[in-house]
Structure formats: structure tokens, C-alpha cells
């Protein structure tokens, strides 16, 4: 704050001196007065043309804004919802599949690209239910109103690969997402009701979550490696 109080007057003084010098020197150059008039009219005409071009370009611009979610919907606690059996938003579900396994079921080592929740059911069956949940990617565009852009659909994921004895998690693809937002200055939008407060935050849940419902009759083979691998598998 103090910085602003000091820097602003210095900038103003420099600006006043510079503009005074430039205006004075322009007077000495004896530029024809008509030059300034022509420049003003030409500049306005150019800006009007640019306005029309921009409006046509915007009308033809196909890019739809991403879906939005409110702050209450953002950052959904998936782990808690699965544990409690609470409803889970459809937007988070990437795949729901069932798999027949034979004999022992194993999870080969994977490297931090998924979070696996295992739920055992007291059933005599060899069918495993699999639900894959997408990671969330949200960016705040109106934090005062608690509204976020949901860019989760933009994230590419690789589903687990199954065979009759195991499920392996492939290395997830690299996601490089680029967005450009244009908004007019908030000062100009004082009466339009579309003020923005900057894109200062966002959230990402990181990795896919795989929820496996495995009957008690299926024997599990999960190696205790003692490294981080174990941290990404949890029994409910």
C-alpha cells in the first residue's frame, strides 16, 4: 500500500513532465493542425472497422465456454462419498464395467497414476465391479460468486487394462491444456453485471480413482512392497 502511495505520484510527475515536453516539442515541430484532426478521425475510423471485424469474428467463433460448477459442487469428496454410499455426480464417472476373473486376482505395481479403493462384498462370485472416476480440473473465474469452470472433460485418461487374473494401471497420458480468456476491464463492466475478479485459483484432484467391488470369494494378491505403491491402494 505504501509502495502504491509513493510510486503513483512519482509516475504521475514523470508522466506530466514527459507529456509536457512532448506536447511542447510537437508545437515546435510545426506539424500542420490538420494532421492531428486527420489522425483523430482516421484513428476513430480504424477502431470502428476493428470493432466490426471483432464482432463478426466473435459471432463466428465456435468455442463454447466450458460448463460451470458452483463452489459447493467443486472439489467433490469422492473418497467420502464412496465410503458412505452417497450419490456421486455423473460428470465424475469415466467408466463402469464388470470383469470375470479366474482364481487369484492381482494388482501389478503401478506408479502413482491411480488411486484404488477396494471394497469386499460377502458374495460367492468371480465378478468384479469396476468404476473409474475422472480427476477433476476446475479453474475459478468468479470466485466471489463461487463459480468455477469445469475442465475435467478435457483431461485424457487411460482406463485400466484387465485380463482374467489381474488389473494393471497404464501410465496416464500427458495432459497439456491451454485456455485463453478475454474479459473487458471490470471498470467498464460496472453496469453490465459481468464483472470478473481474475483467474487466481483453481483445483485439480490429480489422478483417476478406481473403485473395485470384489467378492470375498476372490482371493487377492497385493504385494506389500513398502514403498509408495501401497499408499495408493486402500481397503474400505
Amino acid at each position, binding site marked *: 500500500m505504501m509502495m502504491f502511495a509513493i510510486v503513483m505520484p512519482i509516475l504521475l510527475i514523470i508522466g506530466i513532465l514527459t507529456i509536457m515536453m512532448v506536447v511542447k516539442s510537437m508545437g515546435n515541430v510545426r506539424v500542420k493542425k490538420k494532421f492531428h484532426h486527420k*489522425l483523430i478521425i482516421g484513428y476513430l475510423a480504424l477502431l470502428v472497422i476493428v470493432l466490426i471485424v471483432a464482432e463478426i469474428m466473435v459471432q463466428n467463433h465456435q468455442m463454447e465456454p466450458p460448463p460451470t460448477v458452483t463452489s459447493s459442487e467443486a472439489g467433490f469428496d469422492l473418497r467420502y462419498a464412496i465410503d458412505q454410499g452417497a450419490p456421486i455426480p455423473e460428470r465424475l464417472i469415466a467408466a463402469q464395467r464388470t470383469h470375470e476373473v479366474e482364481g487369484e486376482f492381482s494388482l501389478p505395481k503401478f506408479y502413482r497414476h491411480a488411486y484404488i479403493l477396494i471394497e469386499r462384498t460377502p458374495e460367492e462370485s468371480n465378478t468384479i465391479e469396476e468404476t473409474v472416476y475422472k480427476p477433476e480440473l476446475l479453474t475459478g473465474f468468479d470466485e466471489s460468486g463461487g463459480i468455477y469452470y469445469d475442465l475435467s472433460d478435457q483431461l485424457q485418461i487411460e482406463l485400466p487394462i484387465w485380463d482374467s487374473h489381474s488389473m494393471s494401471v497404464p501410465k496416464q497420458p500427458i495432459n497439456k491444456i491451454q485456455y485463453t480468456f478475454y474479459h473487458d476491464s471490470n471498470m467498464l463492466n460496472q453496469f453490465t453485471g459481468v464483472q470478473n475478479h481474475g483467474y487466481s485459483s483453481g483445483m485439480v484432484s490429480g489422478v483417476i480413482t478406481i473403485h473395485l467391488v470384489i467378492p470375498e470369494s476372490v482371493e487377492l494378491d497385493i504385494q506389500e512392497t513398502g514403498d509408495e505403491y501401497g499408499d495408493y491402494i486402500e481397503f474400505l
Partner: protein
Amino acid sequence: MFSTQWSVHELAKRQFLFKFNANGPIFTMLIVLQIISTVFLSGASTSTSSYEDGDTLLSFNYANVSNDGQVGLTLFWAFIVGFLLTSAAQRNESFAFVTNRLTFQLANFYFFCMAALFGGVTTVLLGSVMKIVAIFNDNAIIETSGLFSAPLDFFSQIIAMTAYTLLLMLVGYTLGTFIQFSKLFIALFALIWIAFTQISFGSDSNGLLNFFYGETSILLFILKVLIAIALLFGVSFWVTNRLEVRNP
């Protein structure tokens, strides 16, 4: 006895036209500043952020493009223009006319209105340039409406920008008038500035800035600006009347 009787308005209008012709470089300066700022800020006003996890599986970059830079620069120019018109050279120019303080002040006010309208219109129109810059980027999302989709919003932007520009000009003009009266006011204004920044920027809901910026009704906003302009203009008129007739 004069064969022609000039009205105050006619005299002020002629003086305004003279000022407009004589101060062409002021408008040219704004055009140059806006072009320079648009060229440089089309890159600089894009802020990029990225989220990356440890394995760089996810990289999310977003860029913000807006006309904040042009708005700030135009307001900066407005303040300086207001200040410039109080210089001794500007005041002495008025002696080329058979005139008085009232017509001199009125001519200045007309000039400010003209300059503010020019600044307001060009700044809003420059937003179109920034829109085009944004569209040429990846996955561009235009969040604000334009002239075709929301004409009322577009014109409200011009009104808001013109009002702020006029306000800043009158603030610069009034401060300049006081400083022309006595250089001691520089120290006083420095103190007032520090107090103002502490009060206005120190809290979210209070302060003089919120008096204008926090207003959501355009009619009330215009009324507030008009009252503020009338006050500033009245004060500067009062001070100017106490200045020497002609400064060296």
C-alpha cells in the same frame, strides 16, 4: 459599443475551438500511448498459470487478455491533461480573445468533455483489438458481450469510461489550479494522497473509490459524477478567480 454582441456561450465555444486546434498534440499523444500499450500489453496482459504434478502428467495454462492496461493508461492521460490545462501558458493563451474567467473556464470544460468522450470511446473500442488478439490464441473464450450481442452494455461501457475520464481530468485540473495558486499545496496534496490511499485501498467496502465504483445504478452513478464534477469545477473556478490576471 460593439456592432456584434457575443453571448457567453458563443465566446466559450470559439475559445474551445481554439483550444481544440491548439491542443491537437494532446489527442495525438493519447493515440500514440494507446497504440504502444496495445502492442505491448497484448502480450504483457496475458497472465499464465499452470498446475503440474510431480510427474508432469498435467499441465494447465490459462491466459487472461483484457483491456485493463488501456483503461489505466487513458485514466493516467486524463489526469495529466487536466493538470496541463492549468499551466500558465494555457491560461495566457486566452488573452488572445476578448474574454473573461467564465468563458475561459467554460471553454476548458468543453475541451474536457470532448477529450473525455474521445478517451472513453477509443478505450472501449480498443477492447475489440484485444478480443481479436485473444481469438487467435488457443481455446479462446470471450466472456464479455459486444456491440452486436448486447448494445446497451456496450454503450454503458462508453458512458462509464467517459465519466471516469472526465472525473480524472477535473481532479487533475483542480489540483493543478491549487498548485498554480500556491506551490505549498504540493506538500498538502502529498499528505492527502497518502491518507487517501490508506483509506480507499485499505478496506474493501469503504472509501471514496467505492462511492463511484460500488454504484450499480447507471443513473445514480452519472448523478454522482456530475455532482463531483460540479464541485471540482466550482472550486477550480473560485481559485482561478483569485489568481493574478496574467502570469509571467
